[in-house]
């Protein structure tokens, strides 16, 4: 307040709040929690600094072409050319495929759990989905290689034979194997992100105002109309947040993808059934063992790219999820 008249007590001193003796337990608890919280923060900052320092020489020597170029030659002796383009594009590509495949599955699962299954079955389903989220990536990768690849190859074959006239599903080679493609890697990403998207969506669905659903039913809506016109529009934001959280995991994914994708610097723009693709994280893992010191710096720069992108995606995701869980209530 500016004017003294408007608020005659403007100069009144404010009391100090949150004062008074605290129990010892309270103080210890506060100390430990703030230490832990700061520790996590400091750790993240340290990793970032470490990555930046080790990546700097490579970034400086390669320039912007590090991001968009598509040659990676880092043999002993010669000046290395390190351009990550196809790997970055590949990461985007399989993330996109994974989201496209995974989101409908996750939303359908969450819908079943919240609105259709009797409560005991819903609990079981929830536990199974949460267990899926805890599966180590190696296990998913091995499953992908041994069990899933033959199945997905069959689907790829059908796609290619029926929709092959459409460039996305075309294959150039003479005797296609239908394996090692971005299509299959996308499926693996889907398997990895479905549990995350499902649990976020389930949370949001279960906080849905039942008054809206009853209102829609009383207007003569069927189940599908309720889902598509009331439930989904209201929870759109939260589902998007869940998708981004899943994406945050998928971007950093290495082992599982490495098992099922043929990495290649011959950039594959859109032919998702071709056995050529990219994934930054898997590439780092693939090269790491035999990298020369200079190449090592390039791989660190690749790690930095993943780290920064993951950080951004996760931050946006948390913001969206927090906001929309509040709003649905």
């Amino acid at each position, binding site marked *: 307040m500016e004017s003294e008249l408007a608020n005659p007590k403007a100069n009144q001193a404010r009391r100090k709040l949150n004062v008074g003796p605290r129990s010892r337990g309270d103080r210890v608890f506060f100390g430990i929690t703030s230490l832990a919280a700061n520790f996590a923060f400091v750790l993240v900052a340290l990793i970032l600094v470490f990555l930046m320092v080790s990546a700097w020489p490579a970034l400086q020597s390669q320039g912007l072409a590090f991001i968009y170029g598509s040659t990676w030659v880092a043999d002993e002796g010669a000046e290395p050319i390190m351009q990550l383009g196809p790997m970055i594009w590949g990461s985007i590509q399989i993330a996109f495929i994974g989201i496209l495949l995974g989101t409908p599955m996750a939303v359908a699962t969450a819908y079943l759990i919240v609105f259709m299954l009797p409560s005991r079955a819903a609990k079981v389903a929830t536990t199974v989905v949460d267990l899926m989220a805890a599966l180590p990536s190696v296990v998913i990768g091995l499953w992908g290689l041994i069990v899933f690849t033959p199945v997905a190859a069959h689907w790829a074959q059908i796609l290619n034979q029926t929709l092959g006239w459409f460039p996305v599903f075309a294959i150039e080679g003479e005797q296609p194997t239908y394996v090692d493609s971005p299509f299959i890697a996308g499926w693996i990403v889907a398997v990895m992100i479905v549990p995350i998207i499902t649990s976020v969506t389930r949370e949001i669905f279960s906080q849905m105002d039942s008054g809206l659903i009853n*209102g829609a039913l009383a207007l003569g809506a069927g189940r599908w109309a309720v889902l598509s016109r009331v439930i989904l*529009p209201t929870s759109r934001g939260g589902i998007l947040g869940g998708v981004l959280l899943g994406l945050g995991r998928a971007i950093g994914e290495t082992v599982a993808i490495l098992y099922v994708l043929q990495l290649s610097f011959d950039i594959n723009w859109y032919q998702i059934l071709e056995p050529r693709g990219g994934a930054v994280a898997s590439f780092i893992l693939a090269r790491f063992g035999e990298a020369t010191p200079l190449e090592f710096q390039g791989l660190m720069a690749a790690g930095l790219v993943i780290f920064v992108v993951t950080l951004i995606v996760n931050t946006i995701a948390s913001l969206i999820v927090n906001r929309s869980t509040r709003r649905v209530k």
Partner: protein
Amino acid sequence: MTNSTPSASTLSAEDISVWFGERQVLSNVNLVFPANQVTALIGPSGCGKSTFLRTLNRMHELIPGAGLAGSVLLDGVDIYAPEVSPVDVRINIGMVFQKPNPFPTMSIRENILSGLKLSGRKTANADELVETSLRRASIWNEVKDRLNDQALSLSGGQQQRLCIARSLAMDPKVLLMDEPCSALDPGSTRRIEETIEELSESMTVVIVTHNMQQAQRVSHQTAFFLADENTPGGVVEFGSTEQVFNTPVDPRTNDYVNGHFG
């Protein structure tokens, strides 16, 4: 489309008993809601008024474990007959809830048209339908310049009248209202009561209320529900509002309407 007001219908509940799982909450309710009459359902909390109301438009059956006996006739046709679709029932028999529930992602206009969209119907003249529905719920003047605003930008009382308008857009023959004013201020309550009076010219209205004055102001006939502890609820007294409030036959009715319990 000329907005012909549909002829009101007579709704009758015959021997309605209701269960949730094994637990029976209503037993042998017989009530007739004549065309163009407003019927108030009164009674203490938990005696089954809302449950009974939901049997009248087949919303009850959506609850897992719900059970029902008896029949509900709309102009003589059993709404629970196997050849009758629940969707048609709910379109003919509209419902307004205790808590205003406009769809938050839709504009005012879209809320009015939401019933058509949700039930997969079309209208020749959407603008006209929006206007007549809002006029019938006497909220047109307040919202006519902001039809594309979000529904949640309205006050609670306006939201409730929007919900009434949304039901009216479906041209229901019967309108069920479950404590439509309990979350509202006296001003909004009075306006909704006026609306109910006008609506009864073109439809049959059943309203649940805890407000004795409201029951006397808006209704032609009143049914008093009661459930003794651990027994299913039922109708203790049913008659003209005048009679139920002034010369109740049952002493329990007398106690209730005079505020001695409940």
